[in-house]
């Protein structure tokens, strides 16, 4: 009786699954684990939902009734936001920690800037302006992900189209597309952001790869971050990719300096059952190139130094483990940068009024590289472009920085956008310095922890592939490199005495005013002293 009921349920479930697939929605999940050179382990979760054959909303239809949204797998909460504000492409990332490009190389997911970063491509035109929709978008996302994205206001919003080109495609509606980009480096990712993130997944964290997303372990990692990416491709449809990256340190948590890891040690969980909705559910482990190791259980496929596990077919509970025979030893040159160039950005000077921005870009290759350098600086720190100086290996050079596009900051409203192309000579260190002035804020503009200082967004560097045929048509093909964020010490007024200041200043003015008018209105007379 029970068995037949189960069988009927199974048939019903598989029928409903076939409906989902027929209606053009597809869900794939993937986990990639890689041991890094310094003994750390990078895990990248990727949950991809594809809404086949659907286009983003044309902003000119915003006034009219929208088509009804009926999804089986696609997250409705996100879908509603995308339709409401007619967003073509959206990227939100919430990260904590600094991605160490030199040791870890490029990340699987490029958006690793510290704090919150949101950028979206939206079609211009229609009744509602791009900026208005951008405001609605960030507030809606703030509500959805329980993050302070509402603070990504016009004081943080820029339009750096050269560094943030769309990853998907932009529909050809005959209207231009605009980018809006904002970062909030002081925003941290935490459990309250992961919970709504998991809610967007069809299997939540109950089954499949997502069951490994254990907040206790993920937020204990050296580096962790989540991302929500929405893009559109003409031949596929709208794709939502939810990602979570973490870099854990097994060497730190093991007593014997071992870099062995398993699902149990990394996430304190195992995969007990598959997500029935997932079309593919794959775990990829990058196999070490040296040393003797063993991997358990036996991978489904081993190909090109990568072991793959198909969660659907493999025995469960699944606890993938990689074990080395010896203790972990730092290999010589583990610190040698593996990215083609590395960046170091600092804000120098102890004064609360002035400072100097210093950026050192080291080219590790034997050929000239061109990178797009982007600063999106809030008005708290204003650039003195006339003091911009570039030295290559200590020698001052001109013509290294070209195609400069600069939108100056406006106090109390707009950040500065500073963009240009740096030509890095082969195997050299480029040192860019620029004087900056630190603004003085109204006392209401300071945040509650005013003495801590302000986090400044990371600069973004994007490699331009040098095209041998044409020197003008260039597209960023490599991932972006985010510099570390900066903490700027702003001068603070005294927060306890606005009344006192108003009273002191007004009294003084009244005193001088009174004295002057006393003299001007009264006559001098000679009086006999009796």
């Amino acid at each position: 009786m029970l068995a037949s009921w189960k069988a009927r349920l199974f048939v019903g479930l598989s029928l409903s699954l076939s409906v989902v697939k027929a209606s053009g929605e597809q869900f794939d999940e993937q986990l990639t684990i890689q041991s890094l050179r310094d003994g750390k382990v990078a895990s990248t979760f990727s949950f991809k939902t594809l809404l086949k054959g659907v286009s983003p909303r044309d902003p000119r239809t915003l006034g009219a009734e929208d088509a009804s949204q009926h999804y089986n797998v696609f997250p409705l909460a996100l879908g509603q936001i995308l339709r409401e504000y007619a967003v073509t492409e959206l990227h939100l990332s919430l990260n904590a920690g600094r991605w160490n490009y030199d040791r870890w190389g490029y990340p699987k997911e490029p958006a690793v800037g510290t704090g919150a970063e949101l950028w979206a491509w939206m079609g211009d035109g229609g009744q509602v302006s791009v900026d208005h929709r951008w405001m609605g978008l960030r507030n809606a996302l703030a509500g959805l992900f329980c993050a302070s994205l509402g603070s990504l206001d016009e004081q943080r919003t820029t339009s750096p189209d050269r560094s943030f080109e769309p990853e998907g495609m932009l529909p050809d509606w005959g209207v231009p597309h605009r980018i809006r980009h904002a970062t909030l480096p002081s925003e941290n990712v935490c459990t309250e952001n992961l919970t709504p993130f998991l809610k967007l997944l069809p299997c939540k964290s109950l089954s499949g790869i997502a069951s490994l997303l254990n907040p206790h372990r993920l937020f204990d990692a050296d580096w962790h971050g989540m991302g929500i990416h929405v893009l559109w491709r003409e031949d596929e449809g709208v794709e939502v990719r939810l990602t979570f990256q973490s870099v854990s340190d097994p060497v730190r948590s093991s007593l014997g300096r071992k870099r062995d890891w398993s699902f149990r040690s990394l996430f304190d969980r195992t995969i007990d059952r598959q997500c029935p909705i997932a079309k593919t559910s794959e775990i990829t482990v990058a196999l070490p190139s040296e040393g003797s190791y063993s991997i358990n259980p036996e991978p489904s496929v081993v190909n090109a130094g990568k072991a793959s596990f198909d969660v659907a077919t493999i025995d469960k509970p699944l606890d993938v483990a990689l074990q080395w025979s010896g203790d972990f030893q730092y290999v010589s040159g583990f610190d040698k940068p593996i990215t083609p160039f590395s960046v170091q950005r600092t804000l120098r000077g102890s004064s609360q009024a002035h400072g100097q921005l210093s950026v050192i870009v080291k080219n590790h290759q034997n050929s000239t590289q061109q990178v797009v350098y982007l600063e999106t600086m809030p008005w708290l720190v204003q650039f003195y472009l006339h003091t911009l100086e570039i030295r290559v290996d200590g020698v001052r050079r001109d013509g290294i920085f070209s195609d400069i596009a600069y939108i100056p900051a406006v106090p109390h409203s707009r950040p500065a956008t500073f963009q240009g192309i740096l030509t890095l000579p082969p195997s050299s260190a480029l040192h860019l310095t620029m004087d900056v002035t630190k603004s003085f804020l109204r006392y209401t503009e300071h945040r509650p922890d005013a003495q801590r200082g302000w986090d400044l967004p990371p600069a973004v560097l994007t490699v331009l592939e040098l095209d041998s045929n044409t020197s003008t048509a260039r597209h960023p093909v490599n991932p972006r490199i985010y510099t570390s964020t900066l903490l700027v010490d702003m001068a603070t007024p005294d927060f306890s005495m606005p009344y006192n200041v108003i009273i002191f200043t007004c009294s003084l003015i009244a005193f001088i005013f009174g004295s002057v008018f006393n003299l001007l209105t009264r006559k001098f007379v000679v009086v006999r002293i009796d």
Partner: protein
Amino acid sequence: MSSSRIRSPSKFTLEFGLAFPLFAAARLVLSLTNLPHVLKYDHQLSSPLTSYLNLQEGIYLFKNGVDPYSGGTFRHSPLFLSLFTTILPATGVGSSILWTLGDASGAWALVQIWRARQRISSSQRDSLIAALYLFNPYLFLPNLAHSTSSFDNALMLFSLMFASQGRASASLLVLSFLVQISPSSILILAPVLLLLITSPVSRLASPQPLTSSGVQFRKSGLLLVEFIAYFTVFTLISALVVGNWIWIPQTWGATTNLPDLTPNTGLWWYFFTEMFDHFRPMFLMVFSIHLFMYIAPICIKFQYDPLFAAFLLIGILGTFKSYPSLSEPGLFLSMITIFPELYPYFRHPIITALLHFHASLLMPLFNSLWLNQGTGNANFYYASTLVFACSNGAALIDCIWAGLRIAIGEEETGYTVVQE
């Protein structure tokens, strides 16, 4: 060196023709040292509206095709922008010479005003006046910091000089240029117009209403029209240079809206840093109007000596304007030298001098403690600017007192002078 000379004016008998080039040369030597590069960062020597760094940034942006008025850094007049991008040098030795020249011409104009007031072609006092202008630390430190307020001061003095010499068009032309680059200088317009229809000669000791001396007020109306015409032409030139009208809120608007709260020696910056947001527009209006409230009473009371009225209004500007630096109060203090008749009647000169001494020691100290050392707090510097405002106010009250008291003359035994 300079202070010892100030204290012993009787020994000071250098010929002006010899002394003046000597002083100017000494100033040039000072400005050719490394001092300008050190001082240009100081907030007390130049405000955001007169800062050399901001001027250079604006010139750089303008030359590189970015509208300098689209941002919040550059707030100098388009006239400065056009002059410095074309004929005037903005960097290096050229700028040192230019700024020294600005102060030297200001000193020369001050001497000319003195001569016009005394109706003499030269005097023993000329060199002293020039020295007290060129070596007033409130004036030469901003000049070494290459603050454009040095040019404001020079233009102010030139306008008064031409007015004292009765050259109406030149005076109004210079004044309209000055108002373009420093809008709050419009305060001087009324006394300049009065000065043009009367004379700069001191009548403080024998006050008489203007109406009794048969002055043609109708002429001042024509002069006002002339001023407006010059001002309009300069405005149009500015618009032509920039190509749009954004520069008006960026330059003139800044003096009333106070977008940049960088500390300076005035009263506005901390008041509006600490101001509640919903009261900000109201107090901005009050502070702006407050400046203009002094024009009519001072001009009416001292109608018989408009040069003195202008001098008092310069003192008002130095105390109450929105983006002052040390050079505005400095101009007022240096101008005291051309009114020696006041000296016996000052009300409390020692207190005023001590207040200035006190403020000028405290301000740089507390500014550095707050912003550079990080051991002080904003209130320290605010308190020292309050002392500075007290000292400026005290000097102003001293001068008004003396200017009125002088009419009574010396006190005789058995009598006393009181205010009615």
